[in-house]
């Protein structure tokens, strides 16, 4: 697909909800900067999360095949329960206006639809079944000693980079 480079084009809005620096300035200004020590608490949550991933076999290539071949309920149980618990938690946070430990009010961003959720979603699904891992489990697999998985992670970083490079030319 070749596009005329001179043709003026609206820049695509960045709809990445996982990157907070892209949110409006006021949100960033209200955010408490956290140094190395402050960030360690996220490492602690990650550590617990990594143990859960491995012990519940979410990182298992076999479990992912079973899920997509409808041969086991396990992964549906894990994801379904996580969504229910997450939804109840978010409901309670909104309902009781629960604040962060530093007293900030908790913000939620609504997601807007774009075609990427369909095209990108399908492509990710294909990759998920091949590698048997989504991004979180890839890092946990590496930790379990499956060192060759570093190649998969580097390829995933490369995929992300190529997406960033081609972004303006892809349908959104």
């Amino acid at each position, binding site marked *: 697909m070749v596009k005329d480079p001179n043709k003026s084009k609206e*820049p695509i809005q960045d709809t*990445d*909800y996982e990157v*907070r*620096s*892209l949110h409006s300035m006021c949100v960033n200004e209200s955010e408490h900067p956290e140094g190395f020590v402050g*960030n360690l608490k*996220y*490492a602690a*949550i*990650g*550590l617990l*999360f*990594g143990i*859960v991933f*491995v012990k519940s*076999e979410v990182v*298992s*290539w*076999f*479990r*992912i095949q*079973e899920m997509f071949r409808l*041969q086991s309920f396990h992964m549906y*149980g894990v*994801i379904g*329960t996580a*969504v229910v*618990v*997450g939804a109840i938690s*978010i409901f309670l*946070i909104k309902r009781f206006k629960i604040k*962060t430990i530093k007293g900030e009010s908790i913000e939620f*961003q609504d*997601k807007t639809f774009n075609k990427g959720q369909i*095209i*990108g*979603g*399908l492509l990710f*699904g*294909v*990759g998920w079944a091949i*590698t048997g891992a*989504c*991004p*979180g489990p890839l890092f*946990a697999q*590496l*930790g*379990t000693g*499956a060192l*060759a998985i570093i*190649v998969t992670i580097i*390829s*995933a970083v*490369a*995929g*992300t980079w190529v997406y*960033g490079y081609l*972004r303006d030319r892809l349908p959104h």
Partner: protein
Amino acid sequence: MSNLIEFIRQPWHWSVAGVLIGLTVPALLILGNKNFGISANLRHICAACLPANIPFFKYDWKKEAWNLFFIGGVVIGGFIAAKFLSDPNDVQISPSLAASLSQYGITDLSNMVPNQLFNWGTLFSLKGLFFFVVGGFLVGFGTRYAGGCTSGHAISGLSNLQWPSLVATICFMVGGFISANLIVPFLLGL
């Protein structure tokens, strides 16, 4: 204490894992207003290592350092689970999957990442090219194109009742069904 360790060593039930993974969402929100989403780290790595003047990678990734700490923790957690809390038995898989995989020579169930598929030897074969490089590329490209992965869309997004996340999750599943049933068997046969 040793009984407790023995208890933890068994594979965990899906409901236990589901509750703990679900609780990550409020834990990150309450600790620091952070949205649970792991694939964003792949973008932060690009922004940190090779932004190459691409607008998509020109942002202050250091503000997102918390997430890199989070995945650092995931790697260490994986290490601890494998080193100290692992179950010595083979992974339990459904008999029909075992039968179908054995046709392709995958019979070693001692590890959650099949040793006969993901090893340095296969890496440099045509099969390895697909399972490591093409698979990984699709994960990285697809998640960013979709704006999130299983954690960002399927867990955080659905928890917050975001319908675009439902669309994304359905597409993840459709892609996965096609891939696991049609593409993976073909690739295993290479």
